[in-house]
């Protein structure tokens, strides 16, 4: 079977398209690359969804933690403390157990016990808590002068938040937030061990990698492939976040020194 054929059969295997049976013996390098890569679709999905929703939740949580109203502050502090203080792995197990018992009382909650919703929900809570702590730290370190200037111009309330507080907070938090995004994508690798069931062998990247490692008893091929994919993903995250960070900082004086142009130096 040629490699193009393999890619055609297995590239979308993890979401249920293509060949139903996984290869059984004589695993080729191409098969391993394709299947593990197809599993990465799930990892990217978990990471993107959790990041997208987690970002807004984190902003809200950070504002709540920073507020003077203790009815808002205390719950936010507690939420952040619980999710930052306990391991993600335990959170997965605990959440799965809770979802299972919820399902028995309310059958409508059935999708919570499957990975596409349940695991994403846990990752969402987790990243919301971590990012909220980062955003909270950034909120605390917004230059006092910026807020005073806003007051002096009569910018208050929602307008002040939208134009002054929020952009400055993001700008200050961005480097640490990049780190958090990288860790979140690494955290998605845990999903395949978190007792959320895999139906019809539609698993994530680590599921396929450990499938190959178990079958061949040779960890030296599937895990480096997985590592390769994750390094690629990390590089992509760094690039995208770097671009956003540059845009957030575009109004600031840049550190680069503008050299006089070549012709100017020539005819001086």
């Amino acid at each position, binding site marked *: 079977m040629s490699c193009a054929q393999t890619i055609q059969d297995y590239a979308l295997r993890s979401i249920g398209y293509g060949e139903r049976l996984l290869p059984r013996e004589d695993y080729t390098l191409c098969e391993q690359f394709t299947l593990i890569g197809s599993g990465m679709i799930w990892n990217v999905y978990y990471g993107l969804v959790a990041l997208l929703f987690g970002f807004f939740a984190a902003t809200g949580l950070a504002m709540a933690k920073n507020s003077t109203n203790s009815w808002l502050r205390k719950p936010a502090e507690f939420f952040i403390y*619980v999710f930052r*203080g306990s*391991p993600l792995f335990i959170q997965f197990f605990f959440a799965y157990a809770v979802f299972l018992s919820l399902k028995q009382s309310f059958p409508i909650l059935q999708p919570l016990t499957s990975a596409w919703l349940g695991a994403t929900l846990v990752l969402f809570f987790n990243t919301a808590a971590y990012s909220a702590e980062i955003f909270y730290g950034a909120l605390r370190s917004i230059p006092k002068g910026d807020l005073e200037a806003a007051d002096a111009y009569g910018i208050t309330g929602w307008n002040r938040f939208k134009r002054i507080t929020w952009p400055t907070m993001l700008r200050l938090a961005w480097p640490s937030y990049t780190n958090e995004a990288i860790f979140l994508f690494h955290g998605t690798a845990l999903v395949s061990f978190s007792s959320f069931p895999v139906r019809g062998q539609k698993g994530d990247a680590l599921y396929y990698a450990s499938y190959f490692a178990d079958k061949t008893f040779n960890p030296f091929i599937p895990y480096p492939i997985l590592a390769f994919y994750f390094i690629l993903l990390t590089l992509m995250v760094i690039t995208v976040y770097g671009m956003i960070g540059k845009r957030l900082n575009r109004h600031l004086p840049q550190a680069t020194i503008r050299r006089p142009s070549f012709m100017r130096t020539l005819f001086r």
Partner: protein
Amino acid sequence: MAFYSSFATVLVLLAITAPVALLFGFAGATAARSRFLPLSLLGKGYTAIVRGVPDIVFFMFFVIALDQAFEYLRHKAKCPDWSEPIRQGNDFVVCAQAKLPLSTSPQWVHETYGFSLAVLTFAIVFGAFAANVLFGAMKAVPRAQLETAEAYGMSHRQTFWRILVPQMWVYALPGLSNLWMILIKATPLLFLLGVEDIVYWARELGATKSPKFSDYPHGNWHAYYFFGLLVFYLMLTSVSERVFKRITVRLSHGQATAAGEAQRKAAQ
């Protein structure tokens, strides 16, 4: 009973891993700082690769890889006249004397061997993070201190051990305390390495017991057990947070930093 002693397993793992990982980190940081190019590339490559890949992938990879590496070395040393290839298709075959642990040895040797493999894996992974922290801390020590040491005629080695190493800890502490928190939260992954730790027992004991097989039949108790673990980890992290606060105060004493300066002023 085994459930309670498994809490001790986690604590023992933490107690052994932390110093070993620090040692790995110290070696990595000194290597990365070295003026001998291959050595510094080795140190930098070690930190870059381990940090770019999810730790769980390393846990899965190293345990099998280390096991096979040890067995391979022993095989070469003990049975030199073994003619068959070691990798026979999907099997990894070594001679009986090279098996680790020997198949005749008692149960506890097997358990200890598994545990020490886990410790080594943790140390390799977290050593890379520690190396990064210590490398940054070594760079953060004010240049003037090192120049003064040179002016007094200390050799390179003396400067390193007497000036740089004692001073770097205060700069390394925030990073190291962060790392300790991450280490605590990584311990449930032990379960994946085949050590019978708290997650293992929580899964075993919490599972549904039917009256046929057990004296104490009960339903699915996973939620309660995992909630217990959640509380255990929360306690562990908050206690260590408090301890680190104390150590920071101790270490800032008499240092040329803002915290040290504040202490000096308060004492006057």
